[in-house]
């Protein structure tokens, strides 16, 4: 149970992730120049979530952790979405 099947991420993949993150930062700033109406927020949030996923999976090593932990992280994000989403049953219909 207490195995040390530790996976070490090399410098090169880390650098690639960094590059991707920087590019995505550029992308958000760039697309913010366009006006998609109410989609603006959606676009910005999708890019941010992509970046977040990169950080979580690689920098934070989640990709190489056990199933249980991955499930927990998923639950937390869903819960957060629910807290925000359900509040809108109120604020969006008031």
């Amino acid at each position: 149970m207490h195995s040390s099947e530790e996976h070490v991420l090399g410098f090169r993949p880390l650098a690639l992730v960094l590059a991707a993150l920087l590019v995505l930062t550029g992308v958000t700033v760039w697309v913010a120049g366009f006006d998609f109406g109410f989609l603006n927020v959606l676009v910005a949030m999708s890019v941010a979530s992509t970046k977040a996923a990169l950080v979580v999976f690689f920098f934070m090593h989640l990709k190489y952790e056990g199933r249980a932990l991955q499930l927990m992280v998923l639950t937390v994000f869903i819960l957060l979405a629910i807290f925000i989403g359900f509040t809108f049953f109120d604020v969006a219909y008031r």
Partner: protein
Amino acid sequence: MTQHVASFLEAPAGAGWLRRVGTWIFSTDHKRIGLLYFYSIAAMFAVGVILGLLIRLELIAPGETIMGAQTYNAVFTLHGVVMIFMVVIPSIPAAFGNIFLPIQIGAEDVAFPRLNLFSWWLYMAGASLAVVSLFTGNGPPDTGWTFYVPFSNVTTTNVDLAVLAVFILGFSSILTGLNFIITIHRLRAEGMTWGRLPLFVWSLYATAWIQLLATPVLGITALLIMAERMLGMGLFDPARGGDPILYQHLFWIYSHPAVYIMILPAMGVISDILPVFCRKHIFGYTAIAISSIGIALAGSLVWAHHMFTSGMSDTAVLVFSLLTFIVAIPSAVKVFNWVATMYKGSIALEPPLWYAMAFIVLFSIGGLTGLVLGSAGTDIHVHDTYFVVGHFHYVIFGGTGFGMFAALHYWLPKVYGRMYNKFWAVAACLIMFAGFHVLYFPMFLLGMDGMPRRYYDYLPQYTDMHELSTVGSWLLAVGLVIMTANLVTGMRLGRRVKNNPWGGASLEWTIPSPPPTHNFLEEPVVERGPYDFAGIEPEEPSMRVPAGATKPGGGEA
């Protein structure tokens, strides 16, 4: 046993009292921490009960009776804050969970013993701050335990300190939950599969998740109140674009799940006690285990049922009312399974079972009145009236309180190695049960008649029920005193018991009473379920089968 094993209670030999205290308050032994929690919670509980009795005294007649409006407002606020944040939320998990969770899964300690000690210190810090807030600044807070804005922002009483105390207590609760989750995931003994976990452990697991995921929202809510008051942020100020109702959302996102932090461990205790005293496997193990998780999950989705009259949208009322009814289902599953466990059991009417049965009755009444509150149309009438006060005392005190009492009577012999007087234990249970109804049942009638809560003064038509209720509070207090006296006498002077007085099948009954410092003499290997009583005999004489007691219809199934 040949050699004597030092129990965890025994201080290192030859130490002075200062050292002895030190070996407790700096101990990382989960059992000692559990007891520390227990004593501090009991002390806070005494404070809360006295405040409760004062509330009842003031309400014995309309008009000002023993205190003015400002004092009364401070008293019920403190009563709520102390009882919720310092008594029931930590009660069963932090006290009994700490002591028995590691033992029940066959571990030597929790995953992070030092963190565990730290969380007790945080609890003490929070509790002390709360006490300090009474005597400093502009007087004790008078906002109610819900700290609703804008009032909590306007009042000049000492809200900041109280809110800081709540923040710290929340932190302590988070750390306990975190510790339990890791302990359950990582430290189960060999053979202790998820399907063999005692249901108490399952309930603590579900509770721990709520503690971990909901409490931070309370944390930020508390921080925001401080930001409003001290920095003038204006996040909830309508004149500056804020929305006071959002505060209520944040508060209840924590505080509704918190009520399940209070009740789930008690449900776990009941699920562990019933089989032992029926000598029968728990009915529907999987269903009970899953329903704990179900309550934790679904319970996180219903917070706005506290806000049906708040001015939020009708759509939200629809959704949250529906979801509220959904949470009732797993609770119903548990209650039915408990009763079914008793069917064709071989029942020994010992004190823990009395308390467990009282729990079932009181919790059912409290839960069923919760349905009245969850239903939108009826909640409009009884919201913020004594009906709600009745509801939550039934579930919190009837539920968590009696669950705690049941746990005390069940595990006290294990912790101290001594037995209390059983006659007085049952008598206290019955007196409290009666007093409970006299105290809290009239509240339902008051609420139906429209008596709002948090009133120090009331219209004359409510006098009779209030009087009755106050008398009930004295009866209850008598029962409580008897119970406490009996338990204290028992744990110091009671007759000694051996490993397994009740004939329980979970791991804590395989080790000496009181348990040795490292719990197990050798690492246990688990080969049986927690409710598999075959071959285990209770050591208590009163639990033995009387000779020749077989009757037709009894016997094997």
